[in-house]
């Protein structure tokens, strides 16, 4: 039986989990499992957002600043005495505005995404700085802090439930809707989709809007969890989210990528980060390990593809 890329990755995740359970003291404690579940969603959502963009063959370098700006939106509402719901709505609106801007320049003007988002990354960062003067906005209500710190039914962290829901929604949107299909088709061959009557620009616009929506959800969880927001909220997730999407099997040139793969990759990152911390590794070594895994897994893919091709050629030779 041949395993799909994603299943292999799932096995790697499982192996990492088991290995760390054995060697890292306290890895399996309820406390630790819980804190991993609290830590994973914010990064997971950003990684999913990045994956959706990468499936179209693009990249969104501004995604973490969209999240931060959206967090600023929520924080402004909360500190000005508005309720949780208006705050969430404003957070989402802020993010969608950013996404719409990216989407407009990418889909209507046609500039390549890496250039656009390189610019908007600086732009959004600037807007946050202009609003916050660089300082953090903090002190939100108890209720709001439950989003990132509370438990669902007193059992599972609410944030991981939110993440699971959005992961499933993303999976359904990508595999079960006409938009999702168009995203994959566009990522493989945008000329062919244009000649098939697909509204490329609308598909792309929705991609950037959806990515920014996920960023907003992540921002809401982060602001709630950290009870504050400032310009660098989540900025360390930027390149990591690209790494997670790619490790999860997403083709950096577009056309392929699955939610489940990205979720496995995010889990692997989480296990390693947490496990190595528990083992008392210097934090900078965590980056080294993650970088090494990224390259190793892709090198593995390369060699397994190569062997597969050799095997196929041999078979064909025999058949003839």
């Amino acid at each position, binding site marked *: 039986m041949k395993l799909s890329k994603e299943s292999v990755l799932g096995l790697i995740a499982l192996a990492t989990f088991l290995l760390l359970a054995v060697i890292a003291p306290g890895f399996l404690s309820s406390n630790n499992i819980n804190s991993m579940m609290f830590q994973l969603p914010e990064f997971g959502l950003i990684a999913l957002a990045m994956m959706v963009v990468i499936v179209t063959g693009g*990249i969104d370098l501004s995604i973490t600043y969209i999240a931060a700006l959206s967090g600023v939106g929520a924080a402004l509402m909360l500190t000005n005495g508005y309720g949780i719901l208006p705050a969430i709505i404003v957070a989402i609106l802020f993010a969608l505005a950013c996404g719409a801007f990216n989407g407009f320049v990418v889909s209507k003007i046609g500039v390549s995404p890496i250039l656009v988002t390189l610019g908007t990354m600086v732009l959004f960062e600037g807007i946050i700085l202009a609003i916050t003067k660089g300082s953090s906005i903090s002190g939100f209500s108890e209720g709001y802090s439950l989003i990132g710190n509370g438990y669902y039914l007193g059992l599972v962290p609410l944030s991981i439930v939110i993440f699971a829901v959005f992961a499933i929604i993303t999976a359904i949107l990508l595999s079960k809707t006409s938009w999702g299909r168009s995203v994959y088709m566009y990522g493989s061959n945008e000329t062919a989709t244009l000649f098939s009557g697909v509204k490329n620009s609308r598909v792309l616009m929705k991609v950037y809007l959806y990515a920014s929506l996920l960023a907003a959800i992540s921002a809401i969880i982060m602001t709630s969890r950290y009870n504050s927001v400032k310009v660098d909220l989540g900025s360390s997730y930027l390149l990591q989210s690209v790494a997670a999407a790619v490790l999860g099997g997403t083709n950096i040139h577009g056309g392929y990528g699955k939610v489940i793969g990205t979720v496995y990759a995010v889990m692997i990152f989480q296990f390693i980060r947490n496990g190595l911390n528990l083992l008392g590794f*210097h934090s*900078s070594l965590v980056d080294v390990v993650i*970088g090494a895994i990224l390259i190793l897994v892709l090198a593995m893919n390369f060699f397994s593809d190569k062997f597969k091709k050799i095997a196929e050629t041999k078979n064909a030779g025999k058949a003839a």
Partner: protein
Amino acid sequence: MKALLKQKEISILAIILLIGAVLSFVSPVFLTIGNFLDIIEGNVVIGILAIGMTLIIITSDIDVSVAALTTAVAVSIGYLFTFLPDSWISVLLLFLIAPVIGLVMGLINGLLVSIIEIPAIVVTLGTLNIIAGLVLYITNGNYVNSTNFPQSFMAFANYELLGLPILIYLLAVVAIGTWFILKHTLIGRSVLAIGGNTQSSVRVGIDYKKVKLFVFAYMGFLAGIAAIAQTAYTKAVDPNGMLGLELTVIAAVVLGGANIHGGRGSIHGTLLGVLLLAIMQNGMILARIDTYWQNVVTGAIIVIAVSYDHLSYKRSQDKLAKIEVEA
């Protein structure tokens, strides 16, 4: 095509002149030679790295590990200072060792991209993590300041020739050297060729894997030189000092007209891109713009520049009439 390249560079030159005009109106210091020397000297490192990045982007790849590479070499230089005797020979030796260290790291990137065929952005993302992590782990972030530097190196760093700092000459040598390679050597033409059409290059017998290996190795080589420049400029080795610089470098290159899809890009265009970013940085303080608004302006200019460039490219493509329609 020639006209097009020119047009690309003219548009960025126009933006530079426009900003320059506004700045010289706002601030009398802007148009002084001293200010310009400061701007250039302060951007020698970015300039050198951007030149290397230009070659990589021409082959339609990207390298996000440059800042980490440069830092790693700079840290090695700081370490070497404890060994090398205080003599001008040491400085020369440094120019031998540092680029080689960079070259080796660049080769690793190149091998992974060309032989193992992992997309460049992924490879360099991986090596960025690995190198930056190791540097931080080994140095624990401690920086070495000028008291530990050999006097000969300080003399080199402060040397001025005909009133120009030595680093400006270094940038000039790198720029002219790379321009020469790109314009007048076989490997340089091959870089442009594989960027223009990889399939064609295979057919005419260009070994594109070797060329890819070359551009990444050359990037590493230049990172080595940039590390010397960085050390000479800051007169300190700071393992955290170049964090995030890679995106500035890439922004400079694409502002300078290099096409992220490959095939286009020039050294003088890239230098203009570096200059534009540098003037914006410099000008913000000179123009007394509120520090909080600096990024808004910079970001907006990048977005406008890349959009404008793309639109004018599209327009010029449309103008190439396909068919002579009879009157």
